[in-house]
């Protein structure tokens, strides 16, 4: 009971801030409209919006996720320079290969995060994910496949697992 109230409160606050930021009008009529609609939406959907029920865990996850983003942005810039170089190179030096590796992740949320991160980083795209945490990855060159095959779990999987408290570093 208490946990669902917490999820409801978090989604209500976030959605109401979202409403204010998007409307930018501070007249009482519009603020009241915002309260009504955000109350309805967060009452109906707070179970989907806040999948983590423990307040402490949610804060920890949010902080670790924010710390993960700069590293990811750096990897994305590297990815783009690499792909752009391969596209513009006259001889087009690509050597595609498909690999599979075990990530040791358990929850759907962490596997989704890892899948998206893999798709955004250098020369790799997630093709499919098995429910037991096996990832199938298409790599544009053989050197892109190496970081995933070096150790189990690979660096990116352990970073994502650390965000959600599934793998200790």
């Amino acid at each position, binding site marked *: 009971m208490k946990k669902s109230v917490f999820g409801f409160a978090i989604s209500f606050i976030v959605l109401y801030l979202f409403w204010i*930021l998007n409307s930018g009008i501070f007249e009482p009529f519009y603020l009241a409209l915002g309260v009504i609609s955000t109350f309805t939406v967060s009452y109906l959907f707070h179970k989907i919006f806040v999948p983590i029920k423990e307040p402490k865990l949610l804060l920890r996850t949010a902080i670790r996720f924010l710390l993960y983003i700069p590293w990811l942005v750096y990897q994305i810039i590297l990815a783009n320079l690499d*792909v752009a170089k391969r596209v513009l190179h006259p001889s*087009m030096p*690509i050597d595609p*290969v498909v690999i599979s590796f075990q990530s040791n992740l358990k929850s759907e949320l962490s596997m989704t995060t890892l899948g998206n991160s893999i798709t955004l980083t250098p020369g790799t795209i997630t093709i499919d994910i098995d429910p037991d945490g096996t990832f199938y990855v*298409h790599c544009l060159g053989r050197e892109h496949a190496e970081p995933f095959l070096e150790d189990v779990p690979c660096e990116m999987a352990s970073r994502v697992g650390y965000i959600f408290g599934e793998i200790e570093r």
Partner: protein
Amino acid sequence: MIEIIKSVIVVIFLIVGSLFLITGSLGIVRFPDTYSRMHASGKCDTLGISLILVGLIIYQGLDFVTVKLILILLFVFFTGPVAVNSIIRASFKSGNKMWTVKGWVQWSKERIE
């Protein structure tokens, strides 16, 4: 003076973003199969659109419009990979062949090294 510097930074962001978008489009034409084409379109488009939006955010300054631009940036970052994944997965499920250096191969989950 500050206005000029700001404009220069904004223009640099916009030009680099557009260059990445052009590179992505060129990659779609040049790469041999569906899988490697998605590498070009997925990554270059995400970074290109992000750079253009960052340029617009700098141009706009701190405003309610900036908040909306930041939200668009977040949505692009979360939805871009999902679209790429679904296209690649559909291509794999319908039995599309993959280009490798040795030739075209039909791969399945059991045949991976």
